[in-house]
């Protein structure tokens, strides 16, 4: 077995484990969902089978024993309880560790597996009546899981007077067509001869196959006004299980006990079941034909789906994508050089080629960056487990609601976003949401809510983390700020400024340090992490009602839309998302403020930084400088430059280890002429300027 196959197995196993966790948490919320029980069972079954195939026998044995317990759940002999979900989740975590520790480094406690299995077996040994309310209800028809398409078999024989009641069956069929793929077969068996027919009565029935993701109720609703009078049956056509069961003949051929030719001959002699049934008069040819149509439809749809699944995804190592993005970055740079050259040479043919290359490069760049886009939903799903476990540990009742899971972000951004979000959610659980008793005393529902939402907003994504907990205590924050010397006593601060104190290093108003949070190491790190992602964070809170953190993050870290400016012979870039306006800075403006670097913009005094001084550029400034006004977190700052070159979209290059800690610079890019332009870190430059100003 090659390492490549093992790596592919491990990746797939992790995906299954991720989905298993999501499904287990969902099952806890709807313990009677037999479909979900089946899915959980299948996950464990797949893990068992594939781990055995790849030589992970310990994983396979362990999964087998968990699967045995899940089989009891599937059969309705064991109820789904929180305790059971706890144990299966622990089993899932252990399998993950076992896969990670394939070399048996001894990092796994050998007793852990035995302990989980003993607890599971103990649970399985209890009589099912111990938790009868959670037993699956076999009376309920199976439901398609959300988003999954199923095939419905519908037999509809309307009442004879359906036409006279003003109902046209075609309208019903059109409604069904809007739900999915439809195959209709009219059953004309009941139509009498012309001598006996009543011209205005309905004798036709229909066998319908509908392949749709719509739930059963939606399908049934189509027939809402006609089902009472006629005959209606809607059933889900069962699909083959995950385990293929090859026919006997194929097994014998596989084993070499029978030649394919001999099998074909024998099968040729055999009469088809449909023919035998028709001959015996048990069913009409039409019924057999209808059933064969169903068989064909299910087969076609399955083949189509398998083909789509096979063709629609391809597993590629992330490093290859990163390499591709780097190459595209190089191409963007070369393309800029080509454009510049075409402009200089003024050769129409070269200009035409350069324009074509620009168009192709832009498409290539967008497509390449799109490949790395992932929905944030998977990250949100991970928090469900975090909230479940931590709230249980703290004796709190917390539910997670989410919105905008489909919002896509660059893979790198999502990875880097994980830690700050985990930190904020842990804070919500530990400090924000009160205990059920405290909540009830305040007139709130016992169960607290954490809401995670994501949405696109221009070239950024906004993520909100909202809770309905205690809210931030302004007075306590201010007092702590004064105590820590962050704010001078008697200083009047706006609510926004007071809340901003929570992002100061070492700030915490928690009375006690818990294992989860409260050491005051956190929100400053969160803010710093987000700023490293060129993002920002805002907080809004109502005391007693809850807190909302709003995080803004660029869609991608690989590319930036910026304003290119020039100072002396050097170029700098200001992230366009932060630019508010541009204006001239005249000698009179400078004079008016008596040399203080402030400018009055519509009655607002905005400080500005001379980039020439900041970066010690050579030469002297022009008579009339230009000022780029940028804003972030509600703060305004200007940058005095020699000239504004224009808008520029570029690929960000890191500065390397030696320069990565240079304050005020977020990165660099290569311009069309091959020179380097530095990307300004606006918040950092503002902080530096503010620090120097207060020191002065």
């Amino acid at each position, binding site marked *: 077995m090659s390492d490549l196959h093992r790596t592919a197995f491990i990746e797939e196993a992790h995906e299954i484990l991720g989905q298993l966790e999501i499904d287990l948490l969902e099952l806890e919320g709807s313990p009677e969902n037999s479909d979900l029980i089946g899915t959980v069972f299948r996950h464990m079954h797949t893990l068992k089978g594939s781990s055995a195939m790849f030589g992970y026998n310990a994983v396979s044995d362990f999964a087998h024993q968990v699967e045995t317990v899940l089989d009891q759940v599937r059969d309705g002999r064991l109820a789904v309880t929180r305790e059971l979900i706890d144990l299966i989740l622990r089993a899932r975590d252990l399998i993950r560790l076992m896969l990670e520790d394939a070399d048996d480094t001894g990092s796994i406690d050998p007793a852990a597996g035995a302990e989980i299995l003993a607890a599971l077996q103990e649970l399985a040994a209890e009589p099912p009546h111990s938790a009868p309310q959670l037993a699956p209800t076999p009376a309920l028809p199976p439901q398609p899981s959300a988003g999954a398409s199923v095939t419905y078999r519908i037999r509809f024989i309307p009442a004879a007077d359906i*036409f006279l009641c003003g109902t*046209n*069956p*075609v309208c019903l*069929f*059109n409604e069904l067509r809007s739900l999915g793929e439809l*195959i*209709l*077969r*009219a*059953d*004309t*068996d009941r*139509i*009498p*001869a*012309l*001598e*006996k*027919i009543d*011209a*205005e009565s*309905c*004798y*036709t029935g*229909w*066998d*319908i196959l509908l392949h749709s993701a719509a739930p059963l109720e939606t399908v049934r609703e189509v027939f809402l006004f006609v089902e009472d009078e006629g005959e209606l049956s809607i059933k889900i056509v069962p699909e083959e299980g995950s385990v293929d069961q090859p026919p006997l003949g194929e097994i014998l051929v596989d084993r070499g006990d029978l030649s394919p030719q001999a099998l074909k001959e024998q099968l040729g002699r055999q009469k088809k079941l449909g023919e035998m049934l028709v001959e015996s008069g048990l069913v*009409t*040819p*039409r019924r057999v*034909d209808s059933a064969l*149509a169903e068989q064909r439809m299910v087969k076609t749809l399955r083949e189509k789906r398998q083909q789509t699944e096979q063709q629609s995804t391809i597993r590629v190592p992330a490093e290859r994508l990163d390499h591709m993005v780097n190459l595209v970055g190089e191409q963007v740079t070369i393309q800029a050089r080509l454009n510049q050259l075409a402009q200089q040479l003024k050769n129409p043919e070269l200009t035409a080629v350069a324009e074509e290359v620009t168009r192709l490069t832009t498409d290539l760049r967008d497509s390449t960056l799109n490949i790395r886009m992932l929905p944030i939903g998977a990250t949100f799903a991970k928090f469900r487990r975090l909230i479940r476990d931590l709230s249980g540990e703290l004796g709190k009742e917390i539910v997670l609601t989410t919105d905008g899971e489909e919002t896509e972000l660059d893979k790198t951004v999502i990875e880097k976003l994980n830690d700050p979000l985990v930190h904020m959610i842990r804070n919500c659980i530990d400090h924000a949401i009160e205990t059920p008793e405290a909540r009830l005393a305040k007139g709130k529902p016992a169960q607290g809510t954490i809401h995670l939402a994501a949405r696109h907003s221009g070239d950024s994504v906004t993520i909100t983390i909202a809770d309905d907990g205690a809210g931030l205590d302004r007075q306590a924050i201010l007092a702590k700020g004064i105590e820590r010397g962050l704010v001078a006593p008697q200083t009047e601060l706006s609510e926004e400024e007071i809340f901003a104190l929570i992002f100061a290093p070492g700030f915490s108003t928690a009375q006690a340090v818990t294992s989860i949070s409260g050491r005051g190491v956190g929100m400053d790190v969160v803010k710093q992490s987000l700023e490293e992602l060129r993002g920002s964070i805002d907080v809004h809170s109502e005391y007693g009602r809850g807190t909302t953190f709003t995080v803004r993050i660029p869609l991608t870290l690989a590319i930036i839309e910026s304003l290119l400016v020039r100072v002396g012979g050097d170029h700098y870039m200001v992230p366009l998302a932060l630019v508010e306006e541009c204006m001239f800075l005249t000698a009179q403006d400078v004079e008016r403020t008596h040399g203080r670097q402030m400018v009055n913009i519509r009655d607002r005094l905005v400080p500005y930084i001379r980039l020439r001084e900041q970066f010690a550029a050579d030469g002297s400034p022009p008579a009339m400088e230009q000022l780029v006004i940028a804003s972030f977190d509600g703060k305004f700052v200007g940058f005095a430059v020699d000239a504004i070159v224009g808008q520029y979209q570029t690929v960000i290059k890191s500065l390397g280890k030696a320069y990565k800690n240079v304050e005020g610079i977020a990165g660099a890019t290569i311009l069309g002429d091959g020179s380097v332009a530095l990307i300004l870190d606006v918040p950092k430059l503002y902080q530096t300027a503010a620090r120097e100003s207060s020191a002065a």
Partner: protein
Amino acid sequence: MFKTTLTMEHPGAGILHLEGAATIEFGKQLHRALREALDRTQTLSVSVAKLTAIDVCGLQLLCAAHRSALLNYQCLSLGRERSAAFAAQVRETGFHSAQPGTCLRAEGQTCLWAESPSAIDCEAL
């Protein structure tokens, strides 16, 4: 509006022309026209080229006429030229896949809705 005209092409062989909307409002009229046409012919072709609409009620009547014809050893078929409205309705109501129905009593007999060449046998008038 709905109009039916029977034209006798040969002795015992005729074409019933259906024109307009063969819908429930005109169900009785179509029923009557089909019965009369079968009474007068041994081989009947029903022309649906000028149908602007037809509903399940009309399709059932054609099916019933075909059944009667088979029972009485007559030949009834649909004309080769079919209006778009007729063809669409046959498809949308699942009549196109209704064959083989129980109206088939013997081998070689074809369902009215089949689109195979044998379905237009009677058109060789």
